[in-house]
C-alpha cells in the first residue's frame, strides 16, 4: 500500500484499484475543532481538483478536493456521529471516503510522505 499527499493537505492510500482519502494531521490542526463533515455519496463521480467534501469547524467551512479522478465507493459513516475523529485520528479512523482510481497516472504528480513533510515545513 502506498500513501500519497496533495498540496491541499489530503492523503490518499492506494490499494489495488481503490483509494482511501482523508485530510492530514497538519490540515486538521489548521482547521481546529471539526463539528461536521459533509461527505459525497456512493456513486458520486469526482474529478481531480474538484469539490469532494466539506469540513465544518466551529469557525468556518472548508472544501476538501478530490486528489484524483474516480467514483466514490464508500463514505466513512463514523464521521456522521463523531466528526471529531478527524481531529483525533485524521490519518486513520478519520478517513473521509473510498474511491476508484480513474487514472493511475494522476498519482505520479502527488507527494510521498517525505516530500509532504518538507512541503509543510516550508509553510
Amino acid at each position: 500500500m502506498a500513501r500519497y499527499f496533495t498540496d491541499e493537505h489530503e492523503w490518499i492510500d492506494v490499494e489495488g484499484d481503490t483509494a482511501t482519502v482523508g485530510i492530514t494531521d497538519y490540515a486538521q490542526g489548521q482547521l481546529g475543532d471539526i463539528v461536521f463533515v459533509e461527505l459525497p455519496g456512493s456513486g458520486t463521480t469526482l474529478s481531480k481538483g474538484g469539490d469532494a467534501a466539506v469540513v465544518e469547524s466551529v469557525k468556518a467551512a472548508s472544501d476538501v478536493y478530490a486528489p484524483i479522478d474516480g467514483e466514490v465507493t464508500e463514505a466513512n459513516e463514523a464521521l456522521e456521529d463523531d466528526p471529531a475523529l478527524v481531529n483525533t485520528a485524521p490519518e486513520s479512523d478519520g478517513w473521509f471516503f473510498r474511491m476508484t482510481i480513474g487514472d493511475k497516472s494522476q498519482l505520479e504528480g502527488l507527494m510521498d510522505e517525505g516530500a509532504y513533510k518538507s512541503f509543510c515545513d516550508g509553510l
Partner: protein
Amino acid sequence: MSDDTEDQIADTETLPLDAWHRRKGARMVPFAGYHMPIQFEGIVAEHNWTRQQAGLFDVSHMGQLLVSGEKAAEELEKLLPGAIASLKPGKVRYSLLIDEEGGILDDLMVTNATPWIEGDEEEGTEGHWGEPAYYLVVNGATKWDDIAHLREHLDDDVTLTHMDDHALIAVQGPNAATALNRVMRNVIDDMVFMESVVHDFGEWPLRITRSGYTGEDGFEISVPAEFAESLADRLCAEIEVRPIGLGARDSLRLEAGLPLYGHDITTETDPVSADLGFALTKRRREEGGWMGHEAVMKVLDRGPVQKRVGLAIEGRMPAREGASIYSGDTQVGRVTSGGFSPTLERPIAMGYVDTAHAEEGTELEVEVRNKRLPAKVAKLPFVPHRYHRGK
C-alpha cells in the same frame, strides 16, 4: 477564517500584547487592521473554559475614546439615542451611533467617567464632581470612522481624546470575579453589571468595568499600554484564567445573542429591526434631538419590515453568514452570523427575517450548499446571560 485578509496584511499593525500572545502559543490573524490571536489551545476548549472558569481576552483593537467638557452629555445626546445626561458617574450604558437614515454606524459602551475630586480641609474645599467626561468603547473596525463622525458633529467646546496609548483586557466567566478579587482585593466588591471604577493598582492606573461580550459575568480593564503585559501575566497567574482567542469570543457572543457590528448590524440595519430598541431611551424617543431620530421613529411607528432573530438549526451542519432563509419556496431572510454552539453542541445562527416569520417557534428552512436545513426561530440568548446584577 481567511476572508478579507488579503489586502490588509501589508499594513497590519501590532497591539501592546502582540509578543505576549505569541509567547502563549497564539495563532495570529489580521483582524480590524491588527494582528490578533484567533486561538490558543483550540476554539472549543477556550469557549468551554470561559463558560466554566474565566477567559482573558485582548480587545485592545477596540477604540477607547474620552469625550469631556461641560457640555459633553448634551453633545453626545445629539448622536446617541440613549439618555446620557441622566447616566450617573460610574454607570455604563449600551448605545448606538446612528446615521440620518436610521442606519447603525456602530454600537458602543458609554461610561460616565466624570472624576470625583476629593475635598481638601486645609484649603476648605469639599469633595465634588470634576469636569464631565464620558468613556466610550467602540468597535475596532469602525473606530476611525467613529472618531471622524464625532469630531464633525460634536461642539468645539467638547474635547475628544483617542486613548490609543491604552490596551483593553477583558476577563470573562463565572470565576472572573473570584480571580480578579484575589489579584485586587475589594476593588470589585460593590460593583454590579454595567458599573465602572477607576483603580490605581500600584502604579498602574486602571479603569475596571463590569461588562463584556460573552454573556458571562466579567470585566473589561483599560490599562496604559506599557503595563498591559504585566497585567495580563498577573491575571493569567490565577488558576481560573487562561488566554482566549477571537474565535471563541465570536462563538461565545453568538450563544449570548449579542450582535456583531459589520455582520448582524450595519448601516443597512436600524435599531428597531435589529431588536435593539432597549438602546432607545423612552424620553429620547419622545423628545428626539438625535441623529436618525426621524427615520428610526418611522420604523418604530410602522413596525419593522424585518427583524433580527435567533435560529436553532436542526442536525449538525452549521449555516453561516449569507445563507438564505426560506418559508416554503419564498425567501424571507438571510443569516448574518452562524456557527456551531460548543455549549449546546448544535448549530445556531442569527439573521433577519420578514416580521411575519419572526415569532419564536416559527418553522423555517436555511439553505446551505443547495440543501434545505429545517430551522426554528429561537429566543435570544441561546445560552442564558449570567451577569452579576447584585441583589
